[in-house]
């Protein structure tokens, strides 16, 4: 989508604030003026593990304003557990901003943002930019349970209309957020981030509604910067995002594996060949 310029760098940042929003959900604000200045919606950083533990962790830049960039993450394994132990004043080095973010400058006036779980971290900057451009923004936000619906208020404060769902019905409607999306008024465009099964459904809905959708994919990364081909997704051979690669024929059409970290993480739904 929005193409990379070469402002990415290694930033030595300091933790300004740390909040545990729910059990195992951490919000870290970093003193990172250059990163904050350079980041566009949908971009991410690779957070270097303070104790050198195999691989950096891909995390969306949640907020970027003034000297402050923030990260919002779930503790799911060793690396996020280590990041969760950071305290105010601790140092955290991050590489970024990375990837091609959302292309928010389109002309849609009534847009839907769809976020599943931690996907919420990737869409705040996008929502703010769309709202600033005058669009009407509905946030479709689903989580397993009420307390994991973190930060919904911040989107409401920013001016989004909220549609919430939880798997267990403990807040909002019970069910998947994509069910709510299907029942709702047709938007002119969709921006989405969340688990792959959710994104597949969003893609299907967008196709059926014949509206454009931009999907921010998340898979386990190796390098996070295009060096290892550990994070691919099949694209249509003709896609403008396809890397230089001879297309393979699959199911009768041309397919190329693109790197989520380098050619993405945001892809146009109708160019994905999952």
């Amino acid at each position, binding site marked *: 989508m929005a193409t990379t310029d070469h402002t990415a760098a*290694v930033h030595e940042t300091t933790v300004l604030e740390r909040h545990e929003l729910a059990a195992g959900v951490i919000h870290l604000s970093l003193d990172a003026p250059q990163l904050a200045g350079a980041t566009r919606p949908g971009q991410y950083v690779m957070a270097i593990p303070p104790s050198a533990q*195999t*691989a950096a962790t891909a995390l969306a830049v949640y907020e970027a304003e003034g000297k402050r960039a923030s990260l919002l993450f779930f503790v799911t394994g060793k690396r996020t557990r280590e990041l969760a132990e950071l305290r105010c004043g601790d140092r955290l080095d991050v590489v970024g901003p990375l990837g091609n973010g959302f292309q928010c400058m389109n002309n849609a006036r009534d847009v839907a943002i769809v976020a599943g779980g931690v996907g919420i971290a990737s869409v705040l900057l996008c929502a703010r930019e769309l709202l600033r451009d005058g669009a009407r923004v509905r946030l479709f936000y689903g989580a397993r349970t009420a307390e994991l619906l973190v930060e919904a208020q911040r989107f409401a404060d920013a001016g989004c209309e909220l549609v919430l769902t939880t798997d267990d019905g403990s807040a909002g409607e019970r069910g998947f957020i994509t069910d709510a999306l299907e029942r709702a008024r047709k938007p002119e465009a969709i921006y989405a981030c969340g688990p792959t099964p959710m994104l597949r459904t969003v893609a299907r809905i967008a196709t059926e509604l014949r509206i454009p959708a931009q999907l921010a994919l998340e898979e386990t990364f*190796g*390098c996070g*910067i295009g*060096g290892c081909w550990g*994070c691919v*997704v099949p694209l249509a051979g003709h896609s403008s995002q396809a890397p*230089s690669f001879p297309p393979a024929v699959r199911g009768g059409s041309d397919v190329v594996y693109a790197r989520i970290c380098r050619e993405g993480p945001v892809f146009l739904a109708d160019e994905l060949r999952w």
Partner: protein
Amino acid sequence: MVNVRPSLTTRIGQLELAYPTLMGSGCYGTGEEFAPFADLRKIGAIVLKSVTRLPRLGNPMPRIVHTSAGMLNAIGLQNPGIEWYLERELPKYSGRPCKLVGSVAGFSIDDYAYVTQRLAARSEIAAIELNVSCPNVASEGETFGCDPGLTARVVRAARAGTDKTLIVKLSPNVTDICAVAREAEAAGADALAVINTVRGMAIDVEAWHPRLANVSGGLSGPAIRPVAVLAVYEVAQAVKIPIVGQGGIETVTDALEFFLAGASAISIGTANFTDPRVPERIVAELEAYLARRGCASIDAIVGKANVGFATPHQYEGDEG
């Protein structure tokens, strides 16, 4: 103490390197991806991603799983095939401020011969590494590197196609790595890369299936370092050609273990995923270490820990 700055230059066959650090094949892309975060002038060489005769889409996702102090990968040799590579990729790499080593993988002796000859003919390529040890392409890929006789045939075939430095990358997944090393040397290898990844797997305990689409993958990172150091130590006793040591190098201490075990150069792979500043930091700290220890050059420490010093006291026989 020497007062001159210690020399880090090294030679692997005819390949002259300003620094004894290579970036591992498949871990450093084309160099361009890392250039915003790392100074490529402070790197000895980049070993490019392995290329095969025909294009390969590689394995489906997931291709990567993080494990304790390591990671599993099963990329499956995704690459555009040698023709596309020579025409559309390689030209982009000229002008890199470090040497480029081409890496060749194959599924037949003839594949290795053909791709080596085509690739080595190019001026962008300073040397060739033969990947006879990729664990991620079903059985075929690694068969060569697990069999001394097959390894010898691959090396002879590749040797016939080029005079450039030929590095043979060995698999640790064998009963006797020295047997393979000796055959590779006898068949004309100029150097050995020791080791490629160790075979492993991880299971998703909620979904009840392997976490990699390919089921098994190659384990890299600090977890395998002790395995790699021993392989270098033993291979260094078995052959006379230089060794490029690798497997889990993250710090200068790790790097020193490999040099002291007998490696003439080292390769850094997974650590670049932890922090792209690692290669530059290791080079700076190697220089400081050599200065502190009064060594004029990196050569001065190669193999210096490679002597048995144990005198075990046993009741039975002479087992250590």
